[in-house]
C-alpha cells in the first residue's frame, strides 16, 4: 500500500475543499514557502509544519490511506474541514515531490495516524461481530408501524388535495400560488412522508416556469398520485417495486444488498444545497462489473459532507445496494485500498442507447428523473438557444437540460471538444442530458464539468 508513486492532481485535492474560500486559501498555501519538515510515509500519512502568523507553526497531518477519503488533523483554530493548511499540504504533496519527500513520520503525526487506524480496525471488527438491529426488535416493529400509519394518513390527505385540484382545474393553481403547496408540504412533513413533501414543494414552483407549465404540472401531479396510490396498495405490489415506493416516500432503509467488490472509478461528485442540507452525489463506475452506482452523503447547512472522492481516483472497495428495483444508490462497505489516480474510462454508448436505457429504467422506477450514462463519440453543438450532444457517427442527438446552459461546465465541455468527438458521462432523463465529466478522444485525464 505505497503512496509514493501515485500522487493526486491539484484538482483532485481542491475537490476536497468545503467551499470556494477554502479552495482559494488552500491554493495559496500549496507552495513550499510556509512549510517546513514536510514529508509523507509509505502508510499514506502526509505531514508538515506550516508557518502562520503566530510564532509557533501549525502541525498539519493528513491520512490519505482511508478509503472513505482523507482524514485530517491540524493544530490551527479553523473550524473549516479540511482547513486551508490541510489543503495546502496536500497541494504541495501533489505538485512537488521534493518538498514532501518520503520519510519517517514524526511522533506527533505518526501517533495520530496509527491511532486512527487502530480505531477503524476495531470498529470494523465490532460491526462484523455484533448482531445487527436494535436491542428490542418488537419495539422497533411497533415504531415502524406507527410511522407507516402516519405516512398513510398523509398519503390519503394528499390524494384528496390532488382530487380537489383536478376538480377545480389546474388553471386555478396559477393563482393560488406557492402558499397552497407550502402548506401541503408542511402537512406531509408532519406525516413523516419526506418524499411526498419534497415533491409537493416542487409543484409550487412549476406554474412560474414559463410556457408548457400545465403539462409539467399535470405530469408531476400524476406521478405524485401514482406514488400515493402505490403506497396505499404496497401490500399488493411485488417486493422490489414496494421497496422502491417506500424509498420514494422517504422511509428509511438500510443498504442490505450483497456486497459487490470492485475497483470503483469516481465518475463525478457534485453537491446540491437547500437551506437545511447539503447533499453530495458521487457516481462510481466498477471497472470489473461495469455497474454505475451512486453514493450519497449529507452535510448540515453550510457544511460540506464528509465523504469526498475526487473525479479520476479509483478505490478498491465493496458496496452494497439499497433495497428497491432499479435502485442505483449504494453504501460504501469495506475498503481494501485507498483512492488513487487511475486511467480507467467507462465504456460508452450512443444517444439512442442512452434514451432506451432511461425508458427501461422507468419500468422499475416510474419516478426516476434520470439515469447515469456515458456517451461515446458525441459532439456538443448549439441548437437554437439550447445545446445538444450529437452522435459523431449518426444524426441523433440528446438535448442538454436547460439548467446546463448557464453552467461553466458547458463551456469546459465545448472547449474540450472543439467540435470533435468526446466521451461524456452524465445523467439523462426526461429533461435532457446533464453532462458531469468528459474525456477527450485518445488519451487524457477526465475533466470534471460540475
Amino acid at each position, binding site marked *: 500500500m505505497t503512496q509514493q508513486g501515485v500522487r493526486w492532481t491539484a484538482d483532485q485535492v481542491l475537490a476536497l475543499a468545503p467551499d470556494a474560500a477554502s479552495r482559494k486559501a488552500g491554493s495559496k498555501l500549496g507552495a513550499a514557502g510556509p512549510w517546513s519538515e514536510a514529508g509523507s510515509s509509505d502508510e499514506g500519512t502526509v505531514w508538515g509544519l506550516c508557518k502562520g502568523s503566530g510564532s509557533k507553526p501549525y502541525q498539519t497531518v493528513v491520512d490519505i490511506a482511508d478509503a472513505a477519503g482523507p482524514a485530517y488533523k491540524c493544530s490551527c483554530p479553523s473550524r473549516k474541514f479540511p482547513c486551508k493548511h490541510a489543503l495546502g499540504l496536500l497541494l504541495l504533496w501533489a505538485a512537488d515531490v521534493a518538498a514532501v519527500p518520503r520519510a519517517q513520520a514524526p511522533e506527533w503525526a505518526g501517533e495520530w495516524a496509527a491511532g486512527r487506524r487502530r480505531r477503524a480496525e476495531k470498529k470494523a471488527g465490532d460491526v462484523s461481530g455484533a448482531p445487527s438491529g436494535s436491542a428490542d426488535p418488537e419495539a422497533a416493529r411497533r415504531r415502524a408501524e406507527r410511522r407507516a400509519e402516519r405516512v398513510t394518513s398523509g398519503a390519503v390527505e394528499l390524494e384528496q388535495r390532488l382530487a380537489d385540484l383536478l376538480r377545480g382545474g389546474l388553471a386555478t393553481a396559477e393563482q393560488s400560488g406557492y402558499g397552497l403547496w407550502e402548506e401541503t408540504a408542511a402537512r406531509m412533513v408532519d406525516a413523516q412522508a419526506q418524499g411526498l413533501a419534497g415533491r409537493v414543494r416542487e409543484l409550487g414552483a412549476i406554474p412560474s416556469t414559463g410556457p*408548457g407549465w*400545465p403539462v409539467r404540472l399535470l405530469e408531476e401531479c400524476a406521478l405524485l398520485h401514482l406514488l400515493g396510490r402505490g403506497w396505499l396498495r404496497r401490500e399488493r405490489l411485488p417486493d422490489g417495486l414496494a421497496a422502491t415506493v417506500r424509498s420514494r416516500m422517504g422511509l428509511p432503509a438500510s443498504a442490505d444488498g450483497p456486497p459487490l467488490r470492485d475497483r470503483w472509478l469516481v465518475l463525478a461528485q457534485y453537491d446540491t444545497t437547500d437551506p437545511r442540507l447539503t447533499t453530495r452525489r458521487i457516481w462510481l463506475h466498477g471497472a470489473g462489473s461495469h455497474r454505475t452506482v451512486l453514493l450519497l452523503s449529507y452535510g448540515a447547512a453550510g457544511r460540506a459532507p464528509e465523504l469526498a472522492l475526487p473525479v479520476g481516483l479509483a478505490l478498491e472497495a465493496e458496496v452494497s445496494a439499497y433495497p428497491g428495483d432499479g435502485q442505483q444508490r449504494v453504501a460504501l462497505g469495506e475498503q481494501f485500498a485507498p483512492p488513487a489516480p487511475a486511467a480507467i474510462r467507462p465504456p460508452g454508448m450512443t444517444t439512442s442507447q442512452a434514451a432506451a436505457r432511461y425508458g427501461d429504467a422507468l419500468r422499475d422506477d416510474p419516478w426516476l428523473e434520470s439515469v447515469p450514462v456515458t456517451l461515446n463519440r458525441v459532439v456538443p453543438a448549439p441548437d437554437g438557444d439550447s445545446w445538444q450532444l450529437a452522435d459523431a457517427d449518426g444524426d441523433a442527438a440528446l438535448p442538454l437540460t436547460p439548467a446546463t446552459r448557464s453552467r461553466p461546465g458547458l*463551456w469546459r465541455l465545448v472547449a474540450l471538444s*472543439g467540435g470533435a468527438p468526446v466521451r461524456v458521462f452524465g445523467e439523462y432523463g426526461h429533461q435532457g442530458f446533464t453532462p458531469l465529466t468528459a474525456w477527450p478522444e485518445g488519451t487524457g485525464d477526465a475533466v470534471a464539468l460540475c
Partner: protein
Amino acid sequence: MTRTSAPVDAPGADVWEGLVTTALLGTDRRTPPGTAPGPDAPAALLDAAAVETVRRRAGRRPARAAEPLQPAPEDPRPALPPAAARRLAMLLADRPGPSGGGRRGAAPDLTELLPQWLALANARGFAPPPQVLPALLDAARGRTDLRPAALEFAGPRALWLARLNPDWRFALRATPGGGAAPPQPQDDESVQQLWQEGLFAERVALLSALRSREPAAARDLLATTWATERAEDRLMFLDSLRAGLSPDDEPFLEQALADRSRNVRATAAELLSALPGSALAARMAVRAGACVAIDHTRTAQPGGNGVENGEPAGTTTNAPTIAVEAPHECDPGMERDGVVAKAPAGRGERSWWLGQLVEAAPLATWPRRLGGRTPQEIVALPVADDWQGELHAAWCRAAVRQRDAEWSRALLGEPSAADAGGPGAVSLAERAKLLGTLDAAERAEWVAGFIAAHGLSEAFQLLGVCAVPWAAPLGRAVVDALNIARDAGSYPWSFSGVMGLAERCLDPSEASRLDALLAVPDEPEDASPGAGGYWAEAFQRLVTTLRLRAAMTEELEGA
C-alpha cells in the same frame, strides 16, 4: 415543448392533449374521456395521466442532430507540461475577492502572478489545455491589462469558442484575425480595399500592422488618401509613423508641417525633431544655438546655482558660464516648425519658446556649440540668470525624445547626489523617462545606487522602469532598504507598493537571502507596536511568492 423533445406517437399525443385540457379546466367542467362524471373523475384522470406520463417519458427518442459546428482550428503549439497545467488551473482559480481592505497576510497574491506566468508560457510557445480556455477568457474579460497575453496564450481555439459565447466577444475585437483577418501586405488589392472601405479601427490596425513589417509601404499607403482624411484621423494615422521612424519619412513629415490642423503640424514637428538628421532638426539647432552660448566674461558665483559636482567653481574668477538669451518673438518660421506660440497660463512667453527650441534641437549641437565639452561637462556648467531649470528640463525632454543615453546619463547625474538625481533632473517622472534610454543593466545599477542613498520612499516610480527580474545589485538594494525600514520601526504597509513590486520583480534566486528576515525580531522600545510581526509576515509572503515564481518557471521548463 421544444423541437428537441422526443416525438411521441400521434395517437398517444391526442390522448395526452385531451388529458391536459381536462386537467386545466377541471373535472367539474369536463369529464375525462372514458370515465364517468362524478367524485371519482379526478382520480381517474390522474390514473390516466400517470400512465401517459410514464409512457411519454419511456418513449422519448433522441432528437435530430442540429447543424454540426465547424471544428476548432488546430493549435500547433506543444501542450503544457502537466505540472504547469496544474499551476495554471490554480492561478486561474484565484479570483480577487470582494474584500479589498485589510492586511494581506503571509500568503502570496496569485492573481498578480498570472501575468508573469502567461508571459513565460508565451515565451516558450506552449498551448493551453482546452478545458481551461473558459476560465482564461473570463480572466481576460475581467482584466484588460491581462488581455493581450491571455489571448495570445489562449490561441485559435479560444477565438473559436468566443464566437459561441457573447460574453467573450471582446476576444474577437481584441485580436487581429478574430473578426476578419487583416490582409497580408503582399495582397495589394485587399490592402487597398480595406484601406478605402474599412472602419476607422480596422484602418488603424492595418496601418500599424503594415508599418511594423514594411515602414515605407505603410507611409505610401497613407499618402494615397492623406489629403482627403479628416483632421482627427490624420492625427491618428500620423502617430502610427512613430514606430520605425526613419530619415525616409522626412519628406512626408515636412509636408505635414504645412497641414491645416495645428495638432497634425505639432505631431509632425515632434516626429521630425526625433530625427536628428532632419532639416527641421537643423533649423531648430540654429534657432536654439542662437539662444545659448558660453559667456567667458562672467564671474561664477561659488556654489551659487546649486551645482555641487561640477567644475571647481569659485576658485577662478573667470569660470565659463552658460548665458541664455531667450527668443524675443515666435516668428512664422518657428510656428511652422511646430513651436506653439501661446504659452500656458503662468509661464513667460520667452522661456516657453526657448524650452521648445532646445527640446527640438539635436543634442549633438551642444558639444560643438559649447566649446567641445562632453554632455557631462555641459550639464555641470553654471547657468546665468536662473535659466538653469528651464534649460536642463528642455535637455531632459530632448534626451528622452532622441533616446540619447549619454545625455541621459549626464542629466541623471550620480544616483547618490544629495539632491536626489543630479543637477538637471526635475522630477521623478522625468528621471524615470531618462532611465528608459539606458540599457537594462545600467538602469538597474543607477536605481540601486539611488535606493542605497535615498531609501525607498521615492523609488517606486523608478523601479517601475527597471527590467524584470531585477538585476542582482538592484534586488539587494531593495531588500537592504526594506530591512533598514524595518529596523527603523515603521510598519510594512508604508512600503506596500515596493513590497508588491518586489514580489513580482525580485529574482527568485534571491529568496534564500531573505531567510534571515523571516523571524519575528525582538521589539525595540521605540518601535511601532507589533511592527516586527507584520514585517516577518510581509517577508514571509515575499519569500513564498518568490518560491512560487521559481516553481512556476521550473514547471514551464518541463523540469
